[in-house]
């Protein structure tokens, strides 16, 4: 019994913080840009495979590869924004389909050039080894990833509450037209957001790459989590996303580690979200704004 | 005259804001009743509740002796209540004719009505409001006055017994306003509907309404003939405010 409680608590914390890192970007894009970035999955795949490409093709070290990957990802994000989102802002279904296509193209390219047998592996373990907390053994890297999640989220919250740019983002999420009238350069802020949300995802992917499987289609599983967390928490609302991440983390840790049926995790999370939608369709958040 | 609508103690709260507070009134068949009040008094909320778009938090609504408080909006429409909208809400992608056809098909319980029959009926209503020549134009391409006429045609096509007309004068120039008032008078004559008319423009209500109800901050503050209401100090205060040296 005690073990079960300990396991639940620890994994709720770990998984919840991780899911937070994964979902923060998706929720932000939904809330601020008001589009569903259904191509979100590509960021995960791109992180791993572009880094690997630089390492294997040019023989660079880990750090320079990561730096190069960051530059490319920023470029892709801006290209997506300018080429797809700005042009078709009135036609949402085109944006959604286009983003999905981008994700599929990247996934298929990765699959083609670096199939699973290629042995893609990124040595990004920051804290090796295992720890024992109470009766539960967890990987140190996972703890590191969770703490990273909390720190990054904290930084994001500080950014949105205390800085001028953060204030602009919050204003846009309330009302785009008034923000424009107040002199906020909405397009620039959007571009900034598109690049900003890459950071938590890249950090999350790099942190858990050594402990969880790496394959071209890994993005979709994380995107499903991001979608579920965002829908549960209220799209675009950081407070709601935080609460929702831990709820889903709790749900998954109970199902995955206590009841020990890890295959049911996705399904159980969906059921939780569906119930929430019936009871309170707008999610946990009080409003459709960033904070 | 029979009483067709009886509203008893209905209220509506939106969070902490009380939009409508314990309002009761009744409407008799064949009347034209005006509903007045400054902006934000709760007129549209009241109408929304009677038509079914919002549920009433408390109170009872009876129509033709039947309790309709819990019925969904489409059932209320089939019983004979319909409304127009303050800001016209046409079906943007449908033509004027198609909009009225939808009402003609669904407003009254006539399940065997075919598309052709409904179209014929719809053209009669369009002709009544004077939009027959514009029947194949997309509803969103009409002028404001025409859109209001379309709203009226759409409401009339459901063969209602009670119509709520929501601020039809807003945005119309005097010529159009005159046409609108006469149109509604003709509708009353020809189709025998009872009208609850929400309006700001006093002159219209003076002329057209037999009875006027005034709301202020969600409460009924006056009820009576237009003359009585116009001279009621509470009503004047709600519109103009208290005099400085009262």
């Amino acid at each position, binding site marked *: 019994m005690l073990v079960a409680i300990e396991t639940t608590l620890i994994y709720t914390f770990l998984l919840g913080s991780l899911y937070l890192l994964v979902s923060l970007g998706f929720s932000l894009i939904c809330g601020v840009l008001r589009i569903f970035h259904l191509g979100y999955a590509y960021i995960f795949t791109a992180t791993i495979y572009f880094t690997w490409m630089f390492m294997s093709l040019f023989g660079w070290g880990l750090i320079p590869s990561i730096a190069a990957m960051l530059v490319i990802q920023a470029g892709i994000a801006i290209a997506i924004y300018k080429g797809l989102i700005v042009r078709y802002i009135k036609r949402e279904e085109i944006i959604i389909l286009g983003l999905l296509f981008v994700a*599929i193209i990247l996934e298929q390219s990765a699959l083609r050039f670096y199939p699973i047998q290629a042995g893609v592996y990124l040595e990004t373990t920051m804290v090796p080894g295992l720890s024992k907390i109470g009766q539960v053994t967890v990987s140190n890297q996972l703890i590191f990833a969770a703490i990273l999640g909390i720190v990054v989220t904290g930084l994001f919250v500080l950014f949105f509450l205390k800085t001028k740019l953060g204030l602009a983002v919050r204003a846009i999420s309330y009302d785009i037209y008034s923000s424009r009238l107040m002199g906020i350069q909405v397009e620039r802020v959007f571009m900034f957001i598109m690049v900003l949300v890459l950071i938590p995802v890249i950090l999350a992917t790099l942190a858990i790459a050594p402990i969880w499987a790496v394959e071209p289609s890994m993005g979709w599983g994380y995107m*499903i989590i991001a979608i579920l967390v965002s829908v549960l928490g209220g799209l675009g609302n950081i407070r709601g996303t935080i609460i929702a991440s831990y709820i889903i983390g709790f749900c998954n840790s109970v199902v995955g580690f206590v009841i020990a049926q890890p295959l049911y995790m996705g399904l159980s999370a969906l059921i939780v979200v569906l119930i929430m*939608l019936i009871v309170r369709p707008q999610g946990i958040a009080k409003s459709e704004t960033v904070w | 005259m029979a009483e067709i609508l009886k509203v008893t103690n209905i209220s509506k709260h939106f969070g902490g804001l009380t939009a409508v507070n314990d309002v009761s009134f009744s409407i008799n068949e064949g009347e034209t009743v005006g509903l007045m009040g400054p902006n934000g008094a709760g007129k549209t909320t009241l109408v929304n509740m009677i038509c079914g*778009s919002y549920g009433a938090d408390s109170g009872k609504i009876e129509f033709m002796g039947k309790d309709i408080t819990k019925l969904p909006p489409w059932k209320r*429409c089939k019983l004979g209540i319909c409304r127009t909208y303050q800001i016209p*809400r046409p*079906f943007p992608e*449908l033509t004027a004719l198609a909009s009225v056809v*939808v009402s003609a098909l669904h407003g009254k319980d006539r399940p065997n009505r075919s*598309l052709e029959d409904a179209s014929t009926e719809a053209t009669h209503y369009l002709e009544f409001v004077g939009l027959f020549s514009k029947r194949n134009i997309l509803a969103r391409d009409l002028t404001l006055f025409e859109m209001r006429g379309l709203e009226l045609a759409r409401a009339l096509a459901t063969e209602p017994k009670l119509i709520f007309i929501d601020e039809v004068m807003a945005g119309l120039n005097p010529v159009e306003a005159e046409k609108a008032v006469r149109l509604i008078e003709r509708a009353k004559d020809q189709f025998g509907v009872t009208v609850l008319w929400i309006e700001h423009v006093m002159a219209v209500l003076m002329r057209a309404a037999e009875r006027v109800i005034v709301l202020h901050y969600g409460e009924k503050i006056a009820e009576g003939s237009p003359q009585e209401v116009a001279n009621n100090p509470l009503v004047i205060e709600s519109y103009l405010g208290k005099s400085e040296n009262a």
Partner: protein
Amino acid sequence: MELEVKRDRLVLRAGGGKWEWHIEPRYWRNPLIYVSILIIAPVVVYFVYPSLLATVIDANLLAAIAIPLALMSIGTGRMNFGPQFYIGIGGYAAALLSIHFGLNPALTLIAAALAGIVFGFIMSPLSIIAGGLYYSLLTLLLPLLFLEVTFIFSDLFKGDTGLSGIAPLVSTGSFSLNLLIYAFISLAMMLFYLFIIDKIFRSRYAVQMAAINDDEEVANGIGVNVNKTKIISFIIPAMMVAIVGWFYAHYYGAFSGQTYLPLSFMLKVFMVTMIGGRTQIYGCIIGGYFIAFLEMILIRTTGGMSPVLFPVILLALLLVLPEGLFGLYRKHHYREYMPTLRFRR
């Protein structure tokens, strides 16, 4: 002697005389012409290049999925991003019943249709309670979660490899003759769907659905039972798509969720819809043939690169022709007033 082709007539000048022949729209607007083309085409292909019949079947099936999808989108007023869920339902129902109980295809057809209706009914409240974008997200997730379920119960669904050994619909001994018969069955199914949905779109239900699509609240206020319309226009297309899943199962003799449930298949279906013009059901046929043949050409010419190139080309098409081929037609002709699809927040 000189033949001049003008926009709506042919002019023939010979020896000082002039003959004009007007081409009336009713000559080429006759659906019989196109149906005949669609019927004769498989026969021609059978004699010329039989293996192309597989592509023809693919095209018919893609169109047969896209056509009910149009009905679902217009009737519920929202875009279902996971229609392939019902392919999975119908396909697995047919496959499981055929393999474990030995039911013949006619019975599995009924079962697949029933499965489609049941699951359509279970999922239909989504169209009422979930608003536009939430609805799109959840419908997007459903097939992916169904895929997860097939992996969870992999002894039943055989996970990755899928079920095989499903009784074929036709077996005449000749592979190409089989294909020809399958082609005709798929064509019949698609034309049947086309006929039904066309009739619905010309009936009073179409105006009702268009009204709901445009403004639900107002439609509710003028007496349209919005919820009933949404549920019915959810369940019927679900059943139709499930039947397509049944066809896939019996046609290939094997059925794996991995082929149909992930997003790549969904995008194919959506491109079929997009190319044809989003709610133009006749356009779906053109879209279906276009996509099926495009994929076939890509696989034959580029082989291994085709999974990468196919989405690239589709993305390019999406950006260049947002209204699909119908958009090109629309640019040159007056606006036609038909119920169209809208998104809502």
